[in-house]
């Protein structure tokens, strides 16, 4: 049996158990990704998309089940100790960067995911040069602003920086949580384009949550639809190529979402 890049086995998570507000967010969810898979996660609000990403990143411990990354059981491993394998870009650009620190310092933090912090000098000239090259690929001019505080950047610039930070060090698993949803259309397109180039070039195993059906059709190798805390359908290959926005929307269970998503 080949080793899966990600294997979520019967993951279960219940919020507010035993109360009137009880909500089963993950209902024995199973999902596995091969190395190099690019899964697009869709599903209505409350389907369990964010809970699943939180379970994979370690931000939320699951009640039962298992999470394996490259064959290693990380179910009980804390966020900071999973960081070596998992990188994540959040919807909120404020969440992925340290605002009061400089661009170069933020890049260094990302680099330290792979190599634990030492007592050596952090920002060496060699590192600054490397960060300049990495940032230049974005073509946003960030490479000339290494000593600028991140709080002075726009949302799009911050999100682009978050992306570069996430893909640096080639994580085993890249989690994108609606990472372009908070951006204006033009900036969103730039960030999405940079995402696709990075994922392709580095052959990263990726999970991307989106509410944009067109993106689900255009990008990725798999469409994974969640509903009520389970994988409802998993569309790959030729079947994926034949998907339309309408065919995807029709699969959503909640009528109220049709108007939102069909638009």
């Amino acid at each position: 049996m080949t080793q899966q890049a990600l294997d979520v086995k019967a993951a279960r998570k219940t919020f507010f158990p035993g109360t009137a507000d009880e909500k089963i967010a993950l209902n024995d969810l199973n999902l596995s990704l091969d190395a190099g898979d690019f899964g697009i996660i869709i599903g209505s609000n409350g389907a369990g998309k964010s809970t699943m990403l939180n379970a994979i990143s370690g931000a939320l411990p699951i009640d039962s089940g298992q999470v394996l990354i490259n064959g290693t059981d990380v179910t009980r491993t804390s966020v900071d100790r999973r960081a070596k394998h998992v990188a994540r870009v959040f919807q909120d650009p404020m969440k992925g960067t340290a605002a009061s620190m400089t661009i170069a310092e933020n890049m260094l933090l990302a680099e330290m995911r792979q190599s634990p912090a030492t007592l050596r000098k952090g920002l060496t000239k060699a590192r600054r040069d490397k960060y300049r090259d990495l940032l230049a690929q974005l073509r946003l001019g960030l490479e000339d602003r290494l000593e600028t505080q991140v709080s002075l950047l726009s949302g799009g610039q911050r999100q682009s920086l978050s992306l570069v930070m996430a893909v640096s060090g080639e994580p085993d698993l890249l989690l994108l949580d609606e990472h372009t949803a908070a951006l204006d259309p033009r900036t969103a397109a730039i960030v999405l384009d940079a995402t696709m180039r990075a994922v392709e070039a580095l052959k990263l195993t990726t999970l991307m949550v989106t509410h944009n059906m067109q993106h689900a059709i255009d990008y990725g190798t798999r469409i994974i639809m969640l509903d009520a805390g389970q994988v409802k359908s998993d569309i790959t290959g030729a079947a994926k190529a034949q998907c339309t926005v309408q065919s995807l929307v029709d699969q959503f269970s909640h009528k109220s979402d049709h108007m939102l998503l069909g638009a």
Partner: protein
Amino acid sequence: MDVLNLFLSLVPVTLAQSLILSFVVLAVMIPFRILSFPDLTSEGSYPLGGCVCAVALLAGVPPLLALALAAAAGFLAGVVTAVIHLRFRIHTLLAGILVTTMLYSVNLRVMGKANLPIFGEAKIYDFFPFDLGSVNYTKIIIAGLFALFVFVLLNLWFRTERGIAMRAVGSNPDMSEAQGISVWKATIGGVGMAGAFAAIGGGLMVQSQGFSDANMGLGILINALAALMIGEALVGKRTITQMLAAPFVGAFAYYQLISLCLAAGLPPSDLKIATGVFVLLMLAGPELRRAKGPRAAQESFRE
């Protein structure tokens, strides 16, 4: 003219005092500015450092080692505050108040009584080999060397990989965790470090004044906060170098202001209100200046 002469005659005393206070200001600044962990523990770790130092000196421990023991005790006090916050989700300020309150009893236990004279013991200030005519100059040089050493060391530390990781935890704890940094380790290390600096301040003060007192910490926190606010107004707080310079500059400026008040005839009992007014002015100043403009962005601290 009398006011000026009096003020100038006070400068050597206040300079020595301010160098010692700068350690406590550092102990307020590091958790507050670098870790976003507003902390009141220094009100307790400062006298703790003093008490431990005095007891150690009386037991025949050499002055420098006594200071190291004080630092270790202060570090432990900071660790307790940090763990109370991290483990039990208790607000940082409340955690600090709890530890400070408990430390009062600890300090009395350590000393065995409320006041411990150490006039006859060897002091760290005795190391200075030359007679400069006044003991104040010796104190200024020894305490100044300590301050300089710590300032340089901290500037280097906060530029190492670990130091940068520690700053990241204060800037964005969730993001730091996602980059593989342990929020627990960084917070415990940082708040502990602050406790150690407050205790070193207490140890230097006890060796300077020749006795240790359980009540010596009373109000030290607000003095340190006033000094920090003044320091930040003077040198800024944007870069790490500015952040680290502010405590030293601020402590100096604060004591000069206090000494000016005294020279001008203000009774010592009114100094608390003067200090309070300084803090208020420093905090209210930026708000008043932009009163007509848009409101300042709220600073966020850990709950």
